[in-house]
């Protein structure tokens, strides 16, 4: 098992914390994990991304230069990173903010209006976890239980009131991914 996951968007979308959540969940399942942020000279409101590697083997380079999964939270991220995804990989597109389609035909692509769905859940900040829920369903890289358990560790206690809405977001993403799988198989 090996997944190199790249999560990219703009600052404030929870890109780095979503990655940490995923890494934490992998650690709880006793997998080898590494998380690394981009730390280039970025301006405020600029792009942010992080790479997460989850594997049953020790991790060599933590830098995800050839992702098996790309989560694109905004358009510049999709345009910048889609060429790097390995053939047969997975691209998850936040179609609320991305009005173009991917050019790749050799990867699986799932479009999800994550921000709109998050608004429906009553909290625009959980868009990232809707996509994360889909990622879990489509790759099985870690279990949803491990992610929920990790939320308790990653969120400071005063934010634990946000766990239910995050759980709903993960579930929403999972449902969408299931529909995507059904459509593919029918």
């Amino acid at each position, binding site marked *: 098992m090996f997944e190199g996951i790249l999560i990219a968007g703009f600052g404030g979308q929870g890109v780095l914390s979503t990655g940490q959540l995923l*890494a934490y969940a992998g650690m709880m399942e006793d997998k080898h994990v590494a998380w*690394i942020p981009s*730390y*280039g000279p970025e301006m405020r409101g600029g792009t942010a991304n992080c790479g997460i590697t989850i594997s049953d083997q*020790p991790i060599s380079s933590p*830098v995800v230069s050839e992702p098996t999964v790309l989560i694109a939270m905004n358009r510049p991220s999709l345009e910048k990173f889609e060429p790097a995804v390995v053939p047969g990989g997975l691209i998850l597109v936040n179609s609320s903010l991305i009005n173009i389609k991917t050019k790749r035909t050799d990867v699986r692509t799932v479009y999800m209006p994550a921000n709109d769905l998050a608004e429906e859940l009553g909290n625009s900040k959980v868009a990232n976890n809707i996509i994360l829920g889909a990622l879990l369903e489509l790759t099985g890289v870690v279990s949803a239980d491990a992610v929920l358990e990790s939320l308790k560790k990653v969120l400071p206690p005063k934010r634990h009131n946000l766990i239910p809405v995050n759980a709903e977001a993960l579930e929403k993403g999972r449902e969408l991914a299931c529909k995507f799988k059904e459509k593919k198989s029918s």
Partner: protein
Amino acid sequence: MAKVLMKGNEALGEGAVRAGCRYFFGYPITPQSELPHYLAKRMPEVGGLYLQSESETAAANMVFGAAGAGARVMTSSSGPGISLMQEGISYIAGAELPCVIVNMIRGGPGLGNIAPAQSDYFQAVKGGGHGDYRLICLAPASVQEIIDLMQDAFDLADKYRNPVMLLADGVLGQMMEPVELGEEKIAEAPEKPWAATGRKKGGPKRLINSLYIVPEECEKHNIKLAQKYDTIRRNEQRWEEYRVDDATMILVAFGTCARICKAVVDSARNEGMAVGLIRPITVWPYPTDVITRVREKAEQFLVVEMNMGQMIEDVKLAVEGMRPVHFYGRSGGMMPVARDVFGEVKKLYNGGAA
């Protein structure tokens, strides 16, 4: 004890606190700023002192003072900041004071950039400042090893009354990995009967000094230092061997590069090539002993670094011309990719054919 997910820079801070370090002086610079950030919060919790100095030059001299008073003390920086500290580091080495200095190397020379590099190797292991001195240099390759080596760094510094440098690169500082912290037992610094802590009514005079104005005395001091460095060379070489036993080709790499080379060794083994890796954990003293041993069986060496070829000189010194020593490097903040290193391995293994 449960594992926690930690950034390399934070692990440096926590490792130092657990090793009994109670004083930190430093000035922020990417890619190591999370370390002072962490200690600004952590030091007061354990009754220690965190101070942001006005410059790196000042930080090195604050370390000089605290070390002279017997404290377990640390500073950290990256490339340009470490260059500014060199005067103070030379004084500390000359006065034989224990301290720990972290260099989270970034691309250079000059202002360079903030991406990971290993291009300060020469500066770290060959001197850096003026005069005839050595730093003990440790090169971790994972966040767990950072935690483990911080304790050793302070112990070695005190054991030999010598500055110790922890040499890492931006990737190790920025990445998060699971670490086992173990029980929180905080080490105590050993007794330091030489420390300048005040005469207290007629005690013996203690002087911290690097001035030997009479050349005869300064030479004597240099000989004493050289003898200490020889002892360190004999006793403190550390390295990790990975699949070297039957290897006819040996990769040599430290830090992040060694992680990449481990994957390359596995790929090579999968294709039936007898390739192994030596990962120096001390880059000074250089683990010459193991190179001398493996050069009997190994037909060639390939040194992989994130610079244009620095550690390769130490490998060549150890190989003593008995075997060819090749080089593969990326520089300026670029990292080697396993596939490219493997390509180089295959080419060399097949006698130069691609």
